[in-house]
């Protein structure tokens, strides 16, 4: 059976190669790399060999486009890990250091379009659950402002992610360590997932990214912070490129107030487990049954 399926796929591939070379002959330029990209497999179906070839091609492409040598990792999930995040609402002062720490680490487009994975909401004090009172364009001279609390929101890495369910091409999925990731080479840009996410965790690349060359982060992961393309969706990955090496995410390191906590939910001695066991925690929009792995808590 399997043999059959593959031979059919191979047949289609050959057919498209033939068709494309036809285009090539008729004057439309079509390079080998573009062709390979067009024929690239789904990430989960790639063999190690395929991955290596893909990475090599992508690194060459990025070198050409950005003039920098990238190292693209494909490091997989470590067995026995399930990543969880903690955010201390009694400490956040709304300074947005996390937002821009993320921008730098994850190669976000800086303008036209400007993309942020973290949105810091400002809410009137005593009104934490009325999200309709939230404002994220606040711009006072100093924070925190009296009478307000701040609530940063990003991808909550749901155990039951609605965005994954709606993707018509399975370009986004949940990894074994619980991270919800996107294959930017597989995404068709339909934005169903953006509509499905109850946390506004996903953003869309309306144009090719604008990243200052000197600020490029060249240590990237295929499923994470490599530069994206026009017409694809991206989102917070809990810094997959860092956490799979055991490093704290960039937002944790950027926060000046120690608001942000991170760890392995399966490790009973981790920071995240301690705060779930000992602090008052809640997860956002729990009633939707999305089972986020992002725990808001009160340290005070």
């Amino acid at each position, binding site marked *: 059976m399997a043999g059959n399926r593959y031979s059919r796929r191979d047949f289609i591939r050959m057919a498209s190669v033939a068709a494309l070379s036809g285009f090539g002959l008729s004057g439309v330029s079509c390079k080998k790399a573009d062709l390979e990209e067009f024929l690239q497999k789904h990430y989960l179906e790639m063999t190690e060999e395929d991955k290596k070839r893909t990475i090599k091609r992508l690194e060459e492409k990025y070198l050409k486009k950005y003039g920098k040598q990238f190292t693209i990792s494909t490091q997989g999930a470590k067995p026995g890990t399930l990543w969880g995040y903690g955010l201390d609402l009694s400490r956040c002062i709304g300074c947005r250091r996390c937002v821009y720490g993320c921008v730098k680490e994850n190669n976000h487009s800086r*303008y036209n379009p*400007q993309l942020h994975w973290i949105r810091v909401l400002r809410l009137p004090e005593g009104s934490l659950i009325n999200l309709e009172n939230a404002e994220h*364009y606040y711009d006072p001279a100093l*924070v925190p402002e009296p009478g307000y609390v701040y609530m940063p929101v990003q991808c909550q890495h749901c155990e039951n992610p609605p965005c994954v369910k709606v993707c018509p091409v399975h370009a986004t999925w949940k990894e074994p360590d619980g991270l919800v990731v996107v294959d930017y080479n597989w995404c068709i840009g339909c934005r169903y997932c953006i509509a499905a996410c109850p946390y506004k965790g996903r953003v869309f690349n309306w144009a090719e990214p604008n990243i200052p060359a000197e600020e490029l982060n060249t240590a990237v992961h295929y499923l994470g912070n490599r530069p994206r393309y026009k017409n694809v969706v991206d989102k917070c990955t809990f810094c997959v490129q860092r956490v799979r090496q*055991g490093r*704290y995410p960039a937002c944790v390191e950027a*926060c*000046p107030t120690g608001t942000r906590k991170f760890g392995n939910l399966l490790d009973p001695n981790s920071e995240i487990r301690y705060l779930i066991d000992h602090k008052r925690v809640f997860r956002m929009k729990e009633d939707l049954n999305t089972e986020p792995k992002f725990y808001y808590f009160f340290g005070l």
Partner: protein
Amino acid sequence: MYYSKQQDVCLERVNMRRIVLLSFLLSLFVFCWVLDGRAKEEDFPVPRPPFSEGIFPCSNCHAGMEANTKRRELKEEHTNIQLKHGSVSRWCLDCHDATNRDMLKLASGEHIDFSHSYELCGQCHGPTYRDWKVGVHGKRIGYFDGGPRTYFLCVNCHNPHDPKFKPIKPEPPPFKPLYKYNPAARSGK
């Protein structure tokens, strides 16, 4: 290999002696530890305490001075320090030591290094200290697994003489979605 019976007995004796010696050393260690009165605090990988430029070691200036242990307002030196941290009940020499200027002093009189200042803070701020030790209060960076990690000291974030956080300038808000509000888009930067 061939051992005679005598050799066997001999070996056993040696082993016995070793065990006795080891257990004696172990009990001595435990005894000392109990005598010490309190379990030694764990060492944490902390950065250098944030001393003001050129102020440490304090003995550079204090060495030749006679210590005046009378509680008073400092008029000549350290005038930039306004104690806003339990100033009614405390003053300099409750935490700094008059005899050893380069060390801090616990309530018990024990001297500790500046890099262990968390023990001093923890005397009053018990729950915060407990949370800090497990990593839920305060900031840490680096590796949580498989590499070096840095625990920020209490005093890396809180000025010990005036610990309340001061308001800071926030980073700019995101552009509003409409292009006319997007200054970078307008100027074509």
